[in-house]
């Protein structure tokens, strides 16, 4: 790999910054009497508040917000934006988060006034384009996952999980079947057990085996007719494919349980293998991961849930449905669990995802997964000479390193390495997840990073490791090139300042 050009598109260490001062809050920029707003000239009579409302209801004083000019507002927000890492700035190898490039075409679709300007309460006759979009997306998602139908309402993956558990509950109850437990592997995302509790179930955790996969014997030992289902991520959170999935599915179905697929890692398998063909009954997808809708700094996402035929009647509703060729309407499934969103779901996110699917087509989606897995394996192989790979075998779309030895021998933690990598112009990888790997560093390069970027990222890991071995102080001091250095998290929790008004 020595022939690789050192210039990497995903390396952000050239980003210009003017300095390292703190940015004042907008409240500190405020000057009484200054303003930016402009509203329509309505010609409506200028009644006073006292003429419109009982005095007992009226505010004693205006809510203080900020008093800034438009120019100062723009400068403030622009400076904030310069204090923020993003996919558009550089590579974001954050394991489990699928921080791929977000094509701008999808934003263009979502900002069309014919989509963004539509009122959600308007009747179906006036929103046929939206309903067509929903139906087309639902069909595509069902084809990718091998399921029969889907709800697009859940606003995020966690909302999808809880929706899925309520579907399980409704299904079992309709069969007169009272079940109390849900099985979850110890490598699962934290949302899984939290969702189980909110779904009214108890969690049974099963350990992973030496391969990093579900221990089939332990699973079978835990199964009985009290088990409502299992929640699995496949490939799992270690980036490994659960090779026994067909046996797992058969074992669950044998006791009448259902299989829930956490679609967090769907980006690894599109066009290769489908959850429905693995035996899953319920699938949530994270459109903000697999289908490239931008993460927005932590939301909005979208977490549609697709189901096998026996669960279709229980789906949340109403669902957009093609009732005659080219004619769409809202239809509530006959045994629907009800609404899980105030309106129809995160519609603009859904439109972006459909644009992404349509620009790629079936072949393109498969290529996405191939390259995601190729990039992850390349970085695994590239780093395996100097780092311990937690489970040293071919991975899917992400790879987990363990820095346990480095910590034991040198006192350098995974977090320290992550902070040092940021000085090299990359976002840090995920740290301390999955919980079952000591000092975990989880890397998900995604398919949109080039070979040159992967090489530069690998070099960043090596530089960080070299410092850990030879110049510990530099690692503990990292990052020194970022707008702020390491942040005192303990103080934030101990002396809570949750608003500007809570400052001492």
């Amino acid at each position: 790999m020595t022939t690789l050009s050192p210039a990497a598109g995903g390396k952000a260490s050239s980003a210009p910054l003017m300095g390292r001062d703190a940015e004042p809050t907008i409240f500190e920029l405020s000057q009484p009497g200054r303003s930016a707003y402009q509203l329509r000239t309505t010609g409506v009579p200028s009644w006073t508040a006292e003429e419109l409302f009982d005095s007992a209801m009226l505010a004693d004083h205006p809510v203080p917000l900020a008093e800034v000019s438009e120019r100062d507002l723009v400068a403030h927000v622009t400076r904030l934006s310069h204090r923020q890492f993003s996919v558009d700035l550089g590579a974001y190898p954050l394991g489990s988060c699928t921080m791929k490039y977000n094509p701008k075409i999808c934003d263009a679709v979502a900002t069309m006034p014919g989509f963004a300007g539509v009122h959600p309460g308007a009747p179906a006759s006036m929103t046929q384009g939206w309903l067509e979009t929903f139906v087309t997306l639902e069909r595509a998602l069902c084809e990718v996952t091998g399921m029969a139908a889907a709800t697009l309402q859940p606003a995020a993956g966690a909302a999808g999980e809880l929706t899925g558990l309520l579907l399980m509950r409704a299904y079992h109850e309709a069969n007169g079947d009272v079940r109390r437990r849900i099985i979850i592997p110890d490598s699962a995302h934290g949302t899984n057990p939290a969702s189980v509790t909110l779904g009214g179930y108890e969690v049974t955790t099963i350990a992973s085996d030496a391969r990093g996969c579900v221990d089939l014997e332990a699973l079978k030992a835990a199964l009985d007719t009290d088990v409502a289902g299992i929640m699995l991520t496949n490939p799992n959170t270690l980036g490994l494919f659960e090779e026994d999935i067909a046996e797992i599915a058969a074992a669950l179905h044998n006791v009448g349980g259902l299989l829930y697929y956490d679609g967090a890692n769907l980006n690894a398998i599109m066009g290769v293998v489908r959850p429905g063909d693995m035996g899953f009954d319920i699938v949530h997808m994270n459109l903000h991961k697999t289908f490239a809708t931008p993460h927005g700094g932590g939301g909005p996402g979208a977490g549609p849930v697709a189901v096998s035929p026996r669960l279709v009647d229980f789906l949340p509703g109403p669902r957009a449905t093609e009732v005659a060729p080219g004619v769409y309407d809202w239809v509530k499934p006959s045994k629907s669990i009800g609404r899980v969103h105030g309106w129809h779901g995160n519609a603009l996110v859904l439109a972006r995802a459909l644009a992404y699917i349509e620009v790629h087509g079936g072949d393109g989606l498969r290529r996405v997964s191939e390259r995601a897995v190729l990039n992850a394996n390349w970085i695994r192989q590239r780093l395996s000479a100097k780092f311990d790979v937690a489970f040293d075998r071919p991975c899917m779309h992400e790879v987990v390193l363990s820095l346990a030895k480095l910590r034991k021998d040198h006192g350098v933690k995974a977090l320290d390495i992550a902070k040092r990598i940021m000085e090299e112009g990359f976002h840090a990888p995920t740290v301390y997840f999955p919980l079952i790997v000591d000092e975990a560093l989880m890397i998900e390069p995604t398919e949109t990073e080039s070979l040159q970027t992967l090489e530069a990222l690998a070099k960043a890991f090596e530089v960080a490791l070299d410092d850990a071995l030879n110049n510990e102080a530099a690692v503990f001091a990292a990052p020194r090139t970022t707008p702020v250095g390491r942040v005192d998290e303990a103080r934030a929790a101990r002396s809570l300042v949750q608003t500007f008004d809570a400052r001492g």
Partner: protein
Amino acid sequence: MADYLPHTDDELRSMLDFLGLASTEELFNAVPSAIRLARGLDLPNGLSEPDILHRFEQRAKRNTARSDQMVCFAGGGAYDHELPPVVKALASRSEFVTAYTPYQPEVAQGVLQAIFEFQTMIARIYGLPVSNASLYDGATALVEAVNLGVASSGSQRVVLSAGVHPHWRQVVTTFAAGTGHELEIVPLKDGLTDFSAIQGTCGVIVVAQPNYLGGLEDLASVRALCDATGAIMVVAADPVASGVLKTPGSFGADVVVGEGQGFGTALSFGGPYLGLFACTMKEIRRLPGRIVGETVDVEGRRAYVTTLRTREQDIRREKASSNICSNQTLMAVAASIQLGWLGTEGFAEMALACARGTRYLSDKLRTGTGATLLHPELNVFRELAVRTVKPASQVVEEMAARGYLAGIAASALNGASDPSLADEVLGHVLLVSVTERRTAEEIDAFAIALEEVAQ
């Protein structure tokens, strides 16, 4: 055709060589052949970007209910408020759009500080000391509020006003199937919640301000009822109303939730929206979702970080009181920009303009016969319940032909029935909303058209 994958053919070959693989197919050796998809995905071939744009333009043409082409009097939880160019430009900056959750605070101060400013603004608007970093939408924020209230009070008895938006009530009902909360819906009487029958211990009492018919509830008496029953007081409050009316926090609400779409987010066909969540200090350890706190970095410079993380699901797992692991940061950032743009004065002006427009329209509907006020004596904010002679859903369709998004038929939100509207009335109630964007000229013409159409 071009896509977003950077690999050249040479690079593909060299990468496979590096891994000792002969083909990309071998990357998936761990997937048993019995379950592999033996065919390609049955999806159309990929299209070029110009083709995609064209296709979506065609779809968009079938969406006629657009606020830029029709005069919007529809509300019901989604409002046509001013969305100025400065907010659109700033909120669409890709540093915000393409960032992830601020897990590494050193490279996420932009989002973290924007959220901190957002939390401050929402806390002030609701009159409470704590706001989280936002939730999915108003309806799901209410679900979280109910869960918090049950955990705090120790009682699963949840009393919910029928004045809460019907969709929100439906969402609370859906999730109660998992938590086992006992829901009681209290009907409205003359447009306001009639809590007189509520006795005994309650866990949570939920009231909407204004309620979905626009009516302004007596929050002081709801507080008294909560004190008498031991309930946590949850108010589903329109944040715009705080521009002119006392905040829900000033009446002693324990938790206030709401929909923040009106602050910088387009109508968007209902999502993504912005769930608001504020509470007292007493409840902060039960707060769902993320919260940002101010602190310092190693050099003593001011810095921001997500805090009180031990509440969250990735640490507490099955013991967590919420499964939320994200928020609607981009919408929260947009809201903080919009509220900064409005400022102290603009926020009050906008609320007052909504109230004036609503009064102006309601005065015009006092003399008609086709369209009349359902509750003529009701004090309202930004929403009006209009009784139409013709079925309201038909009125909406016919008004569309005249260029109006006339409102939302109450029956469309409720389905078959509503706890506080008689079945024969429900089908004839049109929910109309007037924002600061409606001029007197538009309202005059609308009132005339509505009176004609609704006959």
